[in-house]
């Protein structure tokens, strides 16, 4: 397996944004992550794919400590994730996350969803937080929905609000966990467009998705995970045209079949 697992290290001289070394995690007896090594350079855009249950969500959720890893080391922007609450706070302030099911706060308006964290975490004056929120709502092209409640928006609009909500914290890294897989097909593009826009601006992104078109155009690197391991990683062109391992080939044939 090691021959197929060609590590594409960040280019020399590049600043490292995220560094995972030999990360293991168990759910009780179940070994979910089996020694993950991954180094992400600043500005790099990574797509993670793999069969359901292979540990993709768990992996990116370890990066902002929504899950705790039990062995190995995770360093985000120079801060190591340990039980130290200060470190966890520091990492979460700088790492944004977008979920499959949006997880917007239903009792707050779109604008309030966006200003909540800047006000309570960044201790920002309300007016300034609202100004920034409007800036990002314009970026995701829904400034006119600012005073509506999430329940009044379509899925695609909700996911764009979720992205704007994260951006309001000016994160250095964005994590996406299957951001389009809960959406109706006609709404996928509007969300992907926003993500492509982010990528073009140089955001460091780790994105779990099966949108292979997105991976081809946006990713610097595609990672294939299976059963808690990184099986293969490569530049998109190589990855799709010349997969090395049998597991990758099987997965790609299944996913590209439809």
């Amino acid at each position, binding site marked *: 397996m090691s021959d197929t697992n060609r590590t594409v290290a960040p280019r020399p001289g590049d600043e490292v944004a995220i560094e995972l070394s030999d990360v293991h995690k168990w759910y009780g007896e179940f070994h979910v992550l089996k020694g993950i090594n991954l180094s992400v350079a600043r500005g790099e855009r990574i797509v993670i794919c793999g069969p359901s249950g292979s540990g993709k969500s768990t992996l990116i959720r370890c990066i*902002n400590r*929504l899950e705790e890893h039990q062995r190995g080391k995770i360093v985000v922007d120079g801060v190591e994730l340990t039980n130290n609450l200060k470190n966890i*706070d520091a990492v*979460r*302030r700088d*790492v*944004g*996350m977008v*979920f499959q*099911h949006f*997880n*917007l*706060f*239903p*009792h707050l308006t779109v604008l309030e969803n966006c200003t*909540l*964290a800047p*006000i*309570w*975490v*960044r*201790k*920002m*004056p*309300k*007016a*300034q*937080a609202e100004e920034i929120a409007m800036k990002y709502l314009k970026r995701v092209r829904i400034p006119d929905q600012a005073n509506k*409640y999430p329940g009044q928006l379509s899925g695609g609009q909700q996911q764009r609000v*979720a992205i704007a*909500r*994260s951006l309001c*914290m000016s994160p250095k890294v964005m994590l996406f966990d299957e951001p389009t897989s809960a959406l109706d097909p006609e709404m996928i593009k509007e969300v992907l467009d926003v993500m492509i826009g982010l990528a073009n601006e140089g955001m460091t992104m780790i994105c779990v998705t099966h949108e292979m078109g997105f991976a081809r155009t946006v990713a610097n690197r595609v990672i294939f995970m299976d059963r808690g391991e990184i099986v293969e990683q490569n530049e998109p062109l190589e990855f799709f045209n010349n997969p090395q391992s049998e597991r990758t080939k099987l997965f790609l044939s299944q996913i590209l079949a439809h």
Partner: protein
Amino acid sequence: MAISRNLGNPAPQAPRRSLINDPNARAVFFQILVLGGVALLGWYLVTNVLENLARQNIATGFSFLDREASFAIGESLIAYSPANSYSHALLVGFLNTIKVAVLGIVLATILGTIIGIARLSSNFLVAKLASAFVEIVRNIPVLLQLFFWYAVIGESLPNPRQALNPIPGVFLSNRGMKIPALADDPIWIWVGLSILVAIVGVWFLARWARKRQEATGQQFPIVLASIGVLIAVPLLTWLAGGAPTALDVPELQGFNFRGGSNMSPEFAALLVGLTVYTSSFIAEIVRSGIRAVNWGQTEAASALGLHRGTILRLVVLPQALRIIVPPTTSQYLNLTKNSSLAVAIGYPDLVSVANTTLNQTGQAIEAVAIMMTVYLTISLGISLFMNWYNKHIALVER
């Protein structure tokens, strides 16, 4: 209309079927039947009672309320003696009911919320203890629990001569709990007023803190500051008044205590019993309300860098409250209605006083009518208030 349609329809059985099988006609028919039955029964009862009353020479009507009650009441919030009227006695009972209901609702809400959150604790022991409490308490009839607490207080505490004296001035005995009362001094009125002033001050302080945060982003330790104000203002008033320390300390004289104020064993048993029983239900409501808020909400808020307390206050509770409030309302109503079980352990609540009145005067209908009216009014009051509150928090969402 049915007839005009049937004119064009030669089917012979159509008109007959339409009356017997028409669900509307049936509904009306059965409603008339039920109404007639109820009216008949009511007529029978009323005439019967009137006849019986006439035979016993008891006048109907509420004029008995002005007569002298001539029975003593164990404890009262207002001045009362047996020479007062029945209406005054009933007022004493009513106030006693209100006293135990209000205190019970407040304490049951606090205890229930704590236990409900404890059941969600990640600490195994805490969670299991809370579960055990809920399962035991809510599965034992409340009347039994009242007897239990009354027995605990009455049997396990010594008589006044051997009263427990855990803190100087406080005496625990089977006659209740005696605590020192504040000696008469005009300063206490001012201290009371200053507490009101402090509450208003805290309200303004909270407003100012919110405004300042909106303007500058700076947060203000509002909870600590509020506690400070609530303690400091009355304290300063008391000091300014010469800091009087005279207390009316209870003293043992003969077989019982003199002076101080008293919490009777009956009241204590009723309050503890109702609080504990109702809190177990509220705990379940709080727990399920918090559980009903999607875990994704907490995750999204954590990912944004918010802390646990802030998440609970700004994200989880506002959503949980909408689920919690309606069923909690019915627990408040239950507690208030259950307080009428006071009669079983001799606490002079409304039912107990009305019952004595009934026995002495024979005015059964009037006494029961008074009780029902009062409970109905209290219950509707609670319902109205909670509905208003529910609307208020629902509006926050939409």
